[in-house]
């Protein structure tokens, strides 16, 4: 195996010291697990875990016209976010296909942070840049290489953050809000967001402060978690993974991502006309949640059968540690997308009975 072309995380030494096992993902050598996927998964559901997600893109968009530019490029009315607010949005092609899914954070009137998928960093950047018009006062600052990004997730995440940060900890920070605080002499971006279905924070800071933060969190007993647990956690929360569940051939409507598309503010944005037309036409298929009725594990690519005929394919699948059974996402014709529809998933020549269940598979208890 050639690993020479893989990019290393800036905190790779810390991961080695914590016992990580690595595997390639989206061009990066990423920690896949430390103590074990199920143990890490449970730690996040029951206490707290920390992930290094520095492979994700971090693009600061700054200047008087930053909001205008992002509104032009993205499906959500991010220009109307208040300072310290955040929202999920999509970058669509002119035909409405999804080119990337991003989280947009408004730091202040003229400063946004866009966090996007590692695999899409370059094309996303190019696409956003393409909407810069002459006379616009806006700059795109790529901070992926110069910062680290950690996700601290789990019901005890707030307590651990307070213990590490001290009196500056943003105790009252609400879900989908963000702020910047000082940490070890550096700026620390903190948002109450995540990709696990739990309470928690995402943190962006300098490489030095990021390394220290990771060491201190692990030292306090927060479980270091790899991409393996990140995938099982996000799948239970039915959060789509770009490249699996959404891509240039899927529309936000069929993916159940209509909440990320604003048509009510009158703004024109990339893909708007196609998305309006697709909405009016109505989706012919929908991304549904499948729960296995027997043993066996559905994986991405497995055919989904109805009455013996292929009706769709699993886009993401795996084993749910919380439910103790296999779960998956699949696009199915709308007439088969109703909860309770009985189907079969073909897993390496065998048929695994499965049923359409409500989305998501797992929802945290109200705190």
């Amino acid at each position: 195996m050639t690993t020479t072309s893989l990019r290393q995380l800036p905190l790779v030494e810390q991961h080695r010291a914590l016992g990580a096992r690595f595997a390639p993902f989206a061009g990066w050598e990423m920690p896949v697990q430390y103590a074990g996927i199920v143990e890490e998964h449970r730690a996040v559901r029951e206490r707290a875990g920390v992930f290094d997600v520095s492979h994700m893109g971090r693009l600061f968009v700054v200047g008087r016209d930053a909001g205008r530019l992002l509104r032009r490029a993205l499906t959500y009315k991010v220009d109307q976010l208040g300072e310290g607010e955040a929202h999920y949005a999509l970058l669509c092609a002119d035909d409405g296909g999804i080119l990337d899914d991003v989280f947009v954070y408004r730091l202040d009137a003229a400063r946004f942070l866009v966090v996007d998928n590692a695999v899409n960093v370059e094309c996303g950047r190019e696409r956003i840049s393409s909407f810069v018009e002459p006379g616009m006062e806006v700059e795109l600052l790529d901070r992926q290489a110069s910062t680290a990004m950690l996700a601290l997730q789990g019901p005890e995440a707030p307590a651990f953050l307070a213990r590490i940060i001290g009196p500056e900890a943003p105790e009252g920070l609400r879900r989908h809000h963000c702020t910047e605080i000082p940490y070890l002499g550096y700026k620390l971006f903190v948002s109450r967001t995540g990709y696990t279905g739990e309470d928690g924070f995402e943190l962006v800071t300098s490489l030095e402060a990021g390394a220290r933060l990771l060491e201190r969190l692990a030292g306090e007993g927060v479980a270091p978690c790899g991409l393996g647990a990140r995938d099982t956690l996000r799948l239970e929360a039915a959060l789509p993974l770009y490249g699996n569940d959404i891509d240039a051939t899927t529309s936000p409507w069929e993916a159940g991502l209509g909440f990320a598309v604003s048509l009510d503010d009158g703004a024109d944005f990339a893909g708007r006309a196609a998305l309006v037309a697709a909405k009016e036409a109505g989706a012919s298929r929908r991304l549904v949640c499948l729960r296995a009725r027997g043993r066996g594990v559905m994986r991405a690519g497995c055919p989904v059968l109805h009455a013996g005929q292929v009706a769709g394919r699993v886009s993401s699948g795996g084993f749910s540690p919380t439910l103790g059974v296999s779960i998956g996402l699949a696009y199915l014709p709308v007439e088969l997308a109703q909860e309770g529809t009985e189907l079969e998933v073909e897993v390496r020549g065998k048929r695994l009975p499965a049923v359409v269940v409500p989305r998501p598979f797992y929802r945290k208890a109200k705190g």
Partner: protein
Amino acid sequence: MDIPAELRYSKEHEWVRIDGDLATVGITDYAQDQLGDIVYLDLPAAGAAVAQHERMGEIESVKAVSDLFSPISGEVVEVNQGAVDSPELVNQAPYGRGWLLRVRLRDPGELESLLSSQAYDELITREMEENTD
């Protein structure tokens, strides 16, 4: 890695414990560690015939699915239902409660082609070195 001296091993990371003409078969400590959390076993039924180094079933962890290869030929006389019901036993006690099958040996001569604990130790040491390169 635990590699009991009294067992014989296959290159596909199964172990064999001989008791008369019966062989107990399982996967090694190294194999369970590489697989991670095991969640599903697909094993041949009692009465089925298995053949040395041929595919006899599947073992699936949270991460991925792998084929199981039989280290010896013969007839399956017992399946460890405890492990089928609780696959995590294979992680917890791969040489104990996490055994997979009991097989009536067809050709005891096949045992000669299996590895000693020392030879198996060398095999996985090489594998681990390759993995860290």
